[in-house]
C-alpha cells in the first residue's frame, strides 16, 4: 500500500503551500523529502508547509524540514510551518527547533508575513 505524505500542493502569487499528511517517520521521510525538494526546485518566494494533517513526526521528518530550510535560504526564499498538532510541536520543542523555524497557526497568516 502506498500512502503519500503530500496531500496537496497549492501554488499562488504569495507562495507555494504544501499540505502534508499522515506519519512522517523513517518509512515515509524519503518520499516527503523528495517531494519537498521538488517544490524547492521551483524556487517559490515563500514555502508554506501545512502540518495540520500530520499525525506523527520523528527526527527524520524534522531533519528533512531543516534540510529544506537550508535550501529555501539558499534560494533567498522564506519557509513557514503551519498548524502542527501538539505531538508534532513537541518534537520541535524538545530539539529547540521551535526557536529556529517560523511556526504559525494558520495558512493565511503564513502567506501574509
Amino acid at each position, binding site marked *: 500500500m502506498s500512502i503519500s505524505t503530500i496531500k496537496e500542493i497549492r501554488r499562488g502569487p504569495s507562495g507555494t503551500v504544501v499540505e502534508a499528511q499522515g506519519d512522517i*517517520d*523513517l518509512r515515509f521521510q524519503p518520499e516527503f523529502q523528495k517531494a519537498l525538494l521538488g517544490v524547492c526546485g521551483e524556487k517559490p518566494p515563500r514555502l508554506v508547509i501545512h502540518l495540520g494533517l500530520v499525525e506523527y513526526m520523528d*527526527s527524520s521528518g524534522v531533519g528533512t524540514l531543516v534540510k529544506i530550510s537550508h535550501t529555501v535560504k539558499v534560494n533567498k526564499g522564506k519557509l513557514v510551518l503551519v498548524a502542527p498538532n501538539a505531538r508534532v510541536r*513537541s*518534537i520541535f520543542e524538545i*530539539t529547540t527547533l521551535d526557536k529556529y523555524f517560523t511556526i504559525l497557526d494558520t495558512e493565511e497568516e503564513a502567506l501574509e508575513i
Partner: protein
Amino acid sequence: MDNETRNQSVCIQISSDPAHLPRIREAIQQVAMNIGFSEEQIGKMTLAVDEAIANVIKHGYCGCNDQPIEVLINPVERDGHQGIKLVIRDFGKQVSPESICGRDLDDVKPGGLGVHIIRSIMDEVIYSKADGGGMQLELMKLNKP
C-alpha cells in the same frame, strides 16, 4: 511479528524494517495507557522508542531491513511511582556506549537528533554491549505528576 502478553508485559520481535515502527508505537501506547500515563507523556515516550529503533536500523544494521530486533516492554514500580521499562536488543554493530551521545543543538543541521530526544524524554537511558553481539538499550520512565 510475534507478540506475547503476560501481566501487561509485552515482548515483540520484529525485523529491522521501518514498516514495523507503528506496531511498536501502538504496543507502548497500550501498556503506558494501562499504567496511567498522560496522552502527552505517551506521545513523547513513543517518540523516544521510535528514535531508538530507528537508530538501530540506521546505525546498527546500516539500513538493512531483515535483521532481528527485540523489544521488551515491562510495567515497573519504583519509589512509589508506576512506570514503564523497555529493553531494546539488536544483534548489529557493537559500539562503545560512551560514544553514544547527542550533538550540539546550536548547530542546526539535519540528522543526529535521536539520542538527544531519547535522553530528553526518558528518566533512565542505559546503552550496553550485549552478550553474544549487538547492543542493548534500557529505557525507563516513571509516571510522575
